[in-house]
């Protein structure tokens, strides 16, 4: 299992509230911008998509790749971040 980044730890430590989509692990400026253009301007909107895909890893990764062009590592980071957040708060 890969180690988690500081961004991941910060995100899963508390309810996401109104955090921007760039607060998600694996989503930086470039990817965040692309997501915002598609309408996913807040982290909770991406969470919504994650939940609608029934937290399925493969589907979420595919969606992320198609929507903002995330690579494998970024997909994994974002998925792990959201999954862990859900385990703690959902």
């Amino acid at each position, binding site marked *: *299992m*890969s*180690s988690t980044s500081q961004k991941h730890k910060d995100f899963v430590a508390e309810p996401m509230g109104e955090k921007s989509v760039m607060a998600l692990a694996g989503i*930086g*400026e*470039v990817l965040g911008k692309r997501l915002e253009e598609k309408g996913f301007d807040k982290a909770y909107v991406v969470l919504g*998509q994650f939940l*609608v*895909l*029934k937290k*399925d*890893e*493969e*589907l979420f*990764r*595919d*969606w992320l*790749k*198609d929507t903002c*062009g*995330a*690579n*494998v*590592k*970024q997909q*994994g980071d974002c998925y792990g971040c959201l999954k862990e957040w859900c385990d703690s708060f959902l």
Partner: protein
Amino acid sequence: MPLFEEDPAHLSKSRLKSDLVAHSVALPPAQSKKDVYVELHLKHIDQKNAADFSSDEEDQVRDVADKEEDAEDAEIPDPSGLTDDDLKAALLEHGFKAGPIVASTRAVYEKKLRKLLQPDGQDHLNGAEKGVVYSDSEEEDEEEEEGSQGAKEETVERSDQTQQESSQNGDFFYPQCFLPSSRLLDMPIVDKHSMKNQSLYYTPKASPYKWGMKLSQEPVKDTFKDMFPDTQATPTGIHATRRKPIKGAAGRPIQYVYPDTPASPTTQERRAVERRLVPIQIQILVFLIVVVLLYLIYACVEDNSFSPFVALLESLNQGSDGEEGLLLPAETQDTPALSGQE
């Protein structure tokens, strides 16, 4: 129409005769035994039928292939043309239970259906060949039946069979994974989807994803490196961290030391008491000495009638002879005074 299950030994003698005549083979003498006719029959007619059989087999394969293609054409409607419910049903046919199909998820599920449809198509065409190699004739017969009866009537059975086929073909896919890399790009991504069902594999999938990604992700690579300059590039995309060391095992340092033996409260109390026993004895001794001294002093002050105490006083007074001359008359005066008070 040639008979497929023709066994000359099972035919009657007259039948054999007529067959030989039909194939313009010279008849043996009239009184010959059946075996002779059978031999002749086998020699001449079966050779001819062998030639016919090969062409018939080709026709069979072609018919089957055509039927399969027709069946597939009926089954592969364009995923984007399906309604949400149809898309969901199609995914279910391929053994994948889909979640809600809404605007944002539709694209993902269409892509998933396309992925599921592609390897199935390849399987049907390859299945005919593999059936010969692996003697999996049941698959072919089932496919032929489906092709003839129509796809929609067989949806339920088909889903079971595709699951079986995918599970069987999953075994076939494993050897293919180790074929040259040209096939690795397409097959593993697909077969992982078809075989995976609902289980999640992170590390094995990372490699085919990475290879597949490299082809189509050139514009993103540079930004990724800018954003994550510290990450080391791994050839397989697998990141591993050291496991937490087992405490005290194989020379690893013990981070937390536990007490050797757990101590019950009674033993702890006993230990505490024992620690103070020596001081306790000293305290008792000192106490006794103090008591004795106090008693002596009390006795001396109280009453001098007791001879030992008088002797004690005199012994004390004898200690200081130099001043005794002044004290003795004082004492002789004191003692009659004391005795007089009584």
